[in-house]
């Protein structure tokens, strides 16, 4: 799995890739990308043309085919972020840290999409854009928590500093979501009836509708993986830019001594020449 997204030179014979790519694409991502494109076309076809309107929700059900998979993937991304953060703190694995960062950003996108589609579904169905439903509220809090993680991860600092700070926050992401969810659920169910979603979708879903939803999961899942790979590689490249040229930097740093050293010696009382002197010799 490690070599799938990015590998060092010895990862695979370079004969298959004689020239380094000038983008974050590779054969895997191109295949995935093509599948995603075809998938989206099919998903549009199924959602709008082939599947019927729902008895309860009417045409608004067509939003569900992207809303439900986005929500699932948003939580998947959030879980990946926590997993990556744990493995970074535990094994010091940069690979996992970058996975955590990449999936947090993608999870933020999917969460935003989930919220937007949820509101646009709610308006025709419930008559309002927003209700303080347990799931909606939890998702909104998830978005805020993710934005906090990303804000910390993007603060300018040395890689290890940024990564460590972000990893501690990423580690707490899933526990926080669980506690938020628990509290919101109690809060809403103590005073009013359970979530409104439950009567929406699961009741009488069948045939083409079920297939459309399933297709939505597959297509958005493919898209998620495709994005994750690209975003991971972008993050990887960002750190590589930061990383390159350490040897050059050391050489440059040492070269400073040349000019300054001479100046220092000119004012200094010691004679120029080989400054070798064993520690013991200076001992009286």
């Amino acid at each position, binding site marked *: 799995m490690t070599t799938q997204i990015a590998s060092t030179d010895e990862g695979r014979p370079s004969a298959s890739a004689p020239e380094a790519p000038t983008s974050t694409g590779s054969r895997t991502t191109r295949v995935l990308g093509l599948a995603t494109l075809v998938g989206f076309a099919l998903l549009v076809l199924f959602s709008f043309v082939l599947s019927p309107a729902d008895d309860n929700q009417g045409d608004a059900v067509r939003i569900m085919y992207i809303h439900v998979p986005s929500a699932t993937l948003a939580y998947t991304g959030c879980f990946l972020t926590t997993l990556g953060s744990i493995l970074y703190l535990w094994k010091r694995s940069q690979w996992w840290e970058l996975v955590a960062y990449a999936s947090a950003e993608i999870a933020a996108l999917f969460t935003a999409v989930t919220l937007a589609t949820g509101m646009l579904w709610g308006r025709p169905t419930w008559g309002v854009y927003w209700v303080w439903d347990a799931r909606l509220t939890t998702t909104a*809090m998830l978005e805020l928590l993710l934005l906090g993680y990303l804000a910390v991860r993007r603060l300018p600092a040395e890689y290890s*500093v940024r990564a*460590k700070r972000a990893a501690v926050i990423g580690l707490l992401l899933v526990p*926080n979501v669980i506690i938020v969810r628990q509290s919101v659920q109690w809060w809403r169910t103590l005073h009013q009836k359970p979530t409104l979603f439950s009567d929406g979708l699961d009741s009488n879903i069948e045939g083409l509708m079920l297939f459309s939803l399933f297709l939505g999961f597959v297509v958005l899942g493919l898209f998620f993986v495709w994005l994750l790979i690209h975003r991971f590689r972008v993050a990887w490249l960002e750190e590589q830019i930061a990383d390159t040229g350490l040897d050059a930097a050391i050489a440059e740093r040492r070269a400073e001594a040349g000019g300054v050293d001479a100046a220092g010696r000119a004012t200094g009382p010691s004679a120029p020449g080989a400054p070798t002197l064993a520690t013991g010799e200076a001992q009286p």
Partner: protein
Amino acid sequence: MIRDALVVAGKDLRLEARSRVALNQVLPFALLVLVLFAFALDPDRGVLEEATPGLYWVAVLFSGLLALQRSFAVEAADGNRDALRLSGLDPAGIYLGKVLAVGAQLLLLEALLGVGVAVLYTTELDGWPLLLATVVVATAGIATAGTLYGVVAAGLRVRETLLPLLLLPVLAPVLIGSTRAFEAALGGTPSEGWPWVGLMGVFALLYVVAGVLGFGPLLEEA
């Protein structure tokens, strides 16, 4: 670790005793918030009485945020992080010490705000065991999570803006839980409030563990 925690907490409380920032600035701010709520929500229509638990905890949250900012502002001085790392203090001890000091200040703040609510909003305080338990676990939650996120933001130029963004979503369960528990206590149905105390207890416990483990690495950065 406990000894180090007491040393650090003693230092923080002594610092507060000498500078009186919490007493002279944070507390008046908290009372001001209570007054502002009365301006915003017409006291004659009963909205204020109904919303009292929520308003109380929002006031605690915002003034607690100020107390936390202050707690890390004193550590943000030049070279202080180095001094702490060199001090020989256990990082977990430093964390617990700061939690204790912040918690002590929050408890004082909550007590005085409680008096303020009772007087200004003419709230009848009832259901004491639940009220006290709620105050204790909610304070523990705010102090433990706040101190952990405080050290993440400490030493950054953007700490004043970053800490609320990080902390307030995290503290949402504490706000919900403490408000519901207060409503239950004041409404005479304490049995509805105790699950919330448990939830906030779990929250505080989670953050104590995270803080004890995570404070060292976070202090180490740079």
